[in-house]
Structure formats: structure tokens, C-alpha cells
């Protein structure tokens, strides 16, 4: 059914630190429909980043099931599921972090090119995407020669260019000033709606969270 792209069921993860078991994700259940946007909020240390890592297979849960496009992943970390997760990240799941999303040795356009190449897309529309996100003029510059906001726009262009079904964004505007953050966020939501991909956005910015269709509060859930 077209109802769910991502389904999470009774997810559990705890870290062991100094011999103590510290639960971070507790019995978490939720789902995201295609094209839907979900804000993950919660105080610092509540497990937002950890959850996003789980959702793209960079970390493995202790318990529970994550289903992407009806394909289920449990707590197994065997070679097969590792390879499958990698394939999903290549083609379906775009990840954006707060910063350092770009290879410093490559120009913006080459970064996008590399990302779409890995995704198996060869449409050569990198420049168009950079234009679309408002950094077309900076396409040939290197990441350390553009502003933080421009770098984040390029990072978004890079993710959209791979035409993912799901974008996981971990405080993508967290290192930007208010004004720039709003502009970047606006671009993000516009293009997200346009392309119809789903978005899971971790943030502690309630205004930004309010722009999403739904909100998942990890502090409350914990």
C-alpha cells in the first residue's frame, strides 16, 4: 500500500558507558508515509541523532524492526544486511548533517556529481540542482570557499539530485544564523514538497519543527 515508506516498531537501543547501561531509544514505534515530513524533536542528548543513524543503518538497534519500502531490518548486523543498508543509502536515503556534508577536495558541482554517480543516476543535472537551491554561481568553488549557508544548500542539492525517497536531515540548519537558517529551511521544504520525497528532520528548533507535517518528541517518548 502507498501508506508507509518507513515503519518503525518497538525500537530499542542502549549505550554502555562506564559499565552502566544507558537506554537512549525506548520502545519507539512510528511510521512515515511517502512525501510526508516528520520532525524529531527533544532536548539535547535525547537520541535524535542516534535515531537517524538507526534509520539509515549506520547503527544497529538492540531490538525492534525498521521497515523501508516494506523491507524489514532487525537487530542483525550480518554482511547481507550491511550491504543492503549501504545500497539503500546509495539510492533511496539521502542524509544531511549539521555540517561537513561535502568532500573538501571537490568543488560543489563535483560533490553533487560524485553523490549522483554513487546513486547510479547519470542525468548530469548537477548544475541545475545547485541552481535550484540557489548556489548555481558557486558551483565550481570548493566547500571551504563558500559560506556555511551556501555549503548546506549545496548539501541539499546533492541529496535532492540523487532523487531519494527519504531524506534524513540532522539539524541541517543548526550551524547557521537565524536568517540564513530560515532561507535554507524554506528551500528544503519547497523542494521536498516538489519532489515528493519523505523527510525526517531532527531539530531542537520548534519553529522549524512546526513546518513539518508531524512531530515526534523523543523526550516525551522516553
Amino acid at each position, binding site marked *: 500500500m502507498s501508506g508507509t515508506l518507513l515503519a518503525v516498531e518497538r525500537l530499542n537501543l542502549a549505550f554502555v558507558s562506564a559499565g552502566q547501561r544507558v537506554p537512549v531509544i525506548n520502545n519507539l514505534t512510528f511510521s512515515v508515509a511517502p512525501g510526508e515530513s516528520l520532525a524529531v524533536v527533544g532536548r539535547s542528548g535525547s537520541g535524535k541523532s542516534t535515531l537517524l543513524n538507526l534509520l*539509515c543503518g*549506520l547503527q544497529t538497534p538492540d531490538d525492534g524492526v525498521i521497515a523501508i519500502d516494506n523491507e524489514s531490518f532487525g537487530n542483525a548486523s550480518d554482511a547481507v544486511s*550491511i*550491504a543492503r543498508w*549501504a*545500497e*539503500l*543509502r*546509495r*539510492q533511496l536515503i539521502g*542524509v544531511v*548533517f*549539521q*555540517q*561537513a*556534508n561535502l*568532500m*573538501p*577536495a*571537490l568543488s560543489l558541482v*563535483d560533490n553533487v*556529481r*560524485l*553523490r549522483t*554517480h*554513487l*546513486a547510479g543516476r547519470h542525468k*548530469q543535472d548537477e548544475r541545475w540542482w545547485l541552481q535550484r537551491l540557489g548556489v548555481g554561481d558557486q558551483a565550481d568553488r570548493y566547500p571551504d570557499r563558500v559560506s556555511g549557508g551556501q555549503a548546506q544548500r549545496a548539501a541539499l542539492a546533492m541529496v535532492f539530485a540523487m532523487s531519494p525517497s527519504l531524506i534524513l536531515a540532522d539539524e541541517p540548519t543548526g550551524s547557521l544564523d537565524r536568517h540564513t537558517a530560515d532561507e535554507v529551511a524554506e528551500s528544503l521544504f519547497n523542494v521536498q514538497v516538489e519532489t515528493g520525497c519523505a523527510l525526517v528532520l531532527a531539530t531542537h528548533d520548534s519553529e522549524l519543527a512546526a513546518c513539518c507535517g508531524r512531530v515526534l518528541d523523543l523526550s516525551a517518548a522516553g
Partner: protein
Amino acid sequence: MLIRAFLSHYQRHPFQLAALMLMIVLATMLWTGVTVLTDQARSSLAQSEETVAARAHIVRTDGQPVGVEDFVRLRKTGVCVAPWLEVKRPAPEGQVIGVDPMSMACFGRSAPIQDAASLDGMPFMDIGDALRVSQEGYDSQLYLIAPRDDIELPQGYALRAFSLAPPTGELADSFLLNLDALSLLVLLITGLLIRSVYRLGLVQREASFELLYRFGVLPRRIRQLLVLELVVLTAVGVPPGLWLGASLAEALGTGFGQALGSLFDLTLYAESFGSLPWRAAVVMVALVLTVCLLEWVFPQPRQPAMVSAYARLGGGALLLAGALGVVLATELVWVFAGTALVFAGVGLLTPPLLAAVEERRSVRSGATASVADPLRRWRARELSVMFRQLALPVVALQFSIAAVLAVHALVTTFESTFEQWLGQRLAADFYIEVPQGGDSATAARRLNALEGLGTWHLVAHGKAQVRPEEAGTGADPLTADLMALTPITDLVSDWALLSSAERPWRELASGAVMVNEQLARRHDVEVGSPLELTIAGTRMRTNVVGIYADYGRPVAEVLLHADTLPAAFTPRSESFSVNKGELSRDVIHDRLADTWGAPDLQVRDNASIRELASQIFDQTFLLTRAISALTLVLAAVALLIMIWVFFTTRVWYFRLLGVWGLQGHQVRRQLRLLSVRLTLTITAAALPLGIWLTWVLVNRINPLAFGWSLPMDLYPVFWLELGLMAGAAGLLVAHLMRRQLERDANGERP
């Protein structure tokens, strides 16, 4: 408290501290080893030269030249003194020295001439004859020489230093010069390495210095602390390095004096390693402080783009000037200066050049979109960044690989030539010198009559004046060592000749000659060249039928058949080379000792001599190789450290590749490709420099310093070996990085 904040960096990165310490220890060790060995060689040579040559001569304090009446007066007061008349006669005959063996009797063992028999006018002759020569109108100068420089003199006389200046002195100096050059290169490389490791740590600490500055700490205070830190580091690192280096030198250098001795026919005295070489320590401390604190002397300009443009221009100019200097130089010093310039130029040019090459590659791999591989482009770009950021260790590694290549080529050529030479000279089982007054002809007859004896020949040694016909009659003849053979057997006919006419040995028996490589190379003598020989005053014309290898012996040699010799020739010495065949050494000894009435006759066993000679030379070669190999290891360790630290700052981006969907093994493959390409590229960049350095050593430095040149052989198999080693080093780096990548699975973002 301030100090604790200051040192907090090393608390978080103890590895960097350890790396810096390791570099200081290793560099000190290398430098100490090199200096101790060079010093040992130097003082051994100095001592031996003293015994051979150092003497004193007596002058009048009133400034008047000494004359015969002074000699008489001094002898009457009981002073041991002898006349020494130098007659400056121009070539071809050349300068002669007139001496009086009688009055030299009081010199004892330190007399330059032991008996009147060796006065043959080359250059020594009896003072009476010399006086006659001087009256032909040549400049002459009379000295009164004394056996020691501490003898008592009557009023009106004083002692001055006087040197025989043995011909070996220049050779020894050149050898030392080569060693010095090698150690200078070592110093340069170690300086580069220490600086690169130190700078790396400093760059990372800049942020915390900035913070301290904002907290109100004066920059001057920070500098003081930095100097203090360096002083402490060197104080801790230099002594163990010193000790290690001295032990290394002692282990390697025991046979070194011997090696020099057999190279230059000098008696050497091995010096004991009494104390640690503190002079090396001072140089090392100075080096560390200089290279680490260079910025304060020359503040770094702000615009790196401008700097690199200037650097490239300057590098190109240095390279050109140096290369030109090396080609045109007529003195050794200038060759060294030119070489230094070329190295400086190459050092400035290599990193930007390699970076540019990678840049181009990255552009190319993006140009043709159908086959475009963005990952390859990323690797090329990443490498380009690395060549810029790791410029110093890259250059240091390049230099040391080049040095290793050159030393290897030179030493291998030496070794193989030397092996052949030994085979030639020590072909027979035994070597027997005909004792003073012994009759060689009778001995030859009695050897012939000896049933069961293997092949043998008799060699008469002497001197000959040689003039290549092409040089024209006006040219100066040169003096060559003469060797006259009889009979010609398989002891010589198996020699590997560098070039020869047809049936050269038969030609030799009928009056032709062979010359050594030295004579051939320096005077353009070829097979078939006519040659004019003057032996014992008899002039004869002959032609060259063969050229044999001589291991760069700096003296010209002529080989002929004894029947070719003029009747007037009297040999300086004669020797038999004998294969024992079915007989024992004792039988041969007894037969000859009986012939000559010399019961204490020496029968030299060539096999054991050959073994000893090989051993001694192996040790010399080992030493040269060890120095260059150690330099290579040092440079490789430094590069390893640098790449490791560099990759540490890049760990996040390798993880990003994982986020983008590359699996672990794919990320590791990228890592391997990167590091292996890095080490291979540096090796490839070192190759031309190494070949050029070999050329300089073989075709410029050796001819100028030693007066001979070896063939320049290249050893591509060794290049391949070095390439494999570089590849292996790259894989090792990748392996270390992989562990780092796995440990910091959630690596910090920059």
C-alpha cells in the same frame, strides 16, 4: 597552570609527542653515525699521512736561503739534517728531487728514501745528479730537512713544517669529500623531516594558542614556552640518539679503516671511540631549534598562492642554475654547490608539480562524462591536496629515495668491477715475489722442470712513458706502470676484456700491448690505437690490442710480453703467479727458496687474500648502503607519521563515503588506492633525480675527485624493488588507517 594548558595538546595526542621524539632520536642517531664514521676516516687518514709525509725543514732566522755551509755547520754541531734539492724541470721529464742517502742515515725509519737503489730519477735521484740537472738551467730549491719537528737547533736556525705531499693525499681527501657530501645530504633530509613533524603538531595547536592569547597570555610568553618545550625535547631525545648512533658507527666502522687502507695503500690506525661525539649533539640541537623556529626569522607570508608562484619560479631558476653549474664546473666544490642548488630547486618544484599532475588527472576524469568516474576524480583531488600539505616529508622521501638509488647504482657498479678485478689480479693459487737479488730466469727454468705444477707466469714490474700517437708528438707523455708477462697462459687469457682485437693474447706475444681502462678512458685510447712507449730510455711504437678493467685504479697501466722489453730494462720488482696443480704449497716453496737461497720466502695464498679483500670492501659498501638505507627508513617513518596525522583529519570524509552508501571494504579500497598511489608517485618522482645524481657521481664528481670514471650502469630491477617497497609501504599506511577508521566508527566531524 599555563604550562598545563600549554601541554594539553600532547595529553590528547600523545602519539604526536612520541612521533616528534622518535624523529629527534632517529635523526640524531643517523647524524651521529655518519659524523663518527667520517671523523674516524678523517683522523685515520691524517695520522697515516703524518707518518708518511710530515717532516720539518730548517730555515735561517735571518731570512737568507740555506746553503751548503749551513748544512756543514749543522752537521758539525750534531744536528741530524739532510739536503733535499728540488729541481723544477718541466715535462716530459718532470721535477726531480735530489737526496743524499748517506746523510739520511740518521733519520732512521722516517727517511723518505731507504736505500740508494730506489733512486731512479722518478722523482728521487742522487743529489749530485740533481745538481747537474739544475745546472742545465732549471729552477731549483735547496731544503735542509730534519727527521722530526722537535729537534734542538743552534742560534740562527728555525724549523718549518715540510710535507712530501704523497699522491694519495688527494685521493683520500676526495673520498672524505664524498663522505661529507653524503652527510650533508643526510643533515638536509633530517632537517626537513623534523621540521615537517614539528610543524604538523604546531598547526594543530594554533587554535589553543589563539585561545591563550585571548585569555591574556602574551605571544612572547607563548614563544618562550615553545622554545623551552623544544629544549626539553631535544635534551631528552638527543642523548639516546647519540648513543645509538655511536654504537651503530662502531658496529659498522671496525673494518672501515682497513678498507681505506687497502683503497689508498696507506697504513691506518683505527681510532677508538672514547667518548660520545658531543659535536654531533651540538649540531643536532642547533638543527632542531633552527628548523623548528624558522618562522620567527622568516615570517611566513600571508598569501600562499603568491608564495607558491614565487616558489615555482625560484625552484625552476635554482634547478637550471644548479644543473648548469654541475655541467660546467671544473672544481669539485662547484659541482657540490650545483648539486645542492638542483636539490633545492627540485624540492621547491616537486610538491606543486605533483599536485598539478593530479589536478589535471582529476579534470580529465571529469571531462569525458561517459567514462567519468567521480570517485577517481575525488582521489586525484585528494592526492593533490596531500602533495601540497605534506610537501616537506614528500620531498624528504623523494631525496632519500634518490640518494638510495644513486648509492646503489654506484656501489653495485663498484662491486662488480671489483670482483672482476680481484679475479684478474688474484687468478693464480699463489703469488711469490722474487726476493732482492733473486734470479727469475733460473727460477722459471726450475719451475718448468717441476712435474705436476699448474700454469704459472712471471711478471716484471717497472715504469714506462706512454704517448698516444693521436695526441701528436708535442703532447706530454705520461708515466704508466709497466707489467711484462711471460709466458702467456690461461691465467690471463681468460680475462674479461672490455674490448679487444682478434686473438689479443697472440698479438700481445708478438709485440702489441694492452692498457687498463683508466689509461683508455682518460686518454681516449682505443683498440687499434697506435702507442709510443719509452721504456728504459728506448723508444718503441706499438699498438693497443686490448683494454682490461682496473677498478678505477688511478694509475695508467701498460701490459706487454716480456720479449717485447728492451734489453736495457731492469725491473723494479718481479713476481711469480703459480697454480699449484698436483703439488702442495710446500713443494713449490721449497723449490723456489732453494733456487734463491731464501729460506724465509713468502708464498702468498691468493684465495685467502681474495677473501679478505672481499670482506673489507663488502664492509665499505655495507656502510655506504647502510647510511642511505637508514635515511630512507627515517624518511619513510616520517611520511608514515605525516600521512597518518593527515588521514586523521580526513577520517570523517571516509565515513561520509560510508554514509553515501559505500560499504566498508569499498571505503578501504579507496584508502588503499590513495596511499599506494601516493607512495608510488613519490618513488616515481625520485627516479629521475636518482638517475641524475648517479650521473653526477659517476661522470662529474668521481672524475674530478678521483680522476677516473666508472661506466654508468643503471639497475631497473632495483627500481622495481623500490617500487614494490613503496607499494608495500602504501598498503601498510592504508592498513593503519583502516584500524583508525574502525576505531572511530563515529568519528568526530571537523
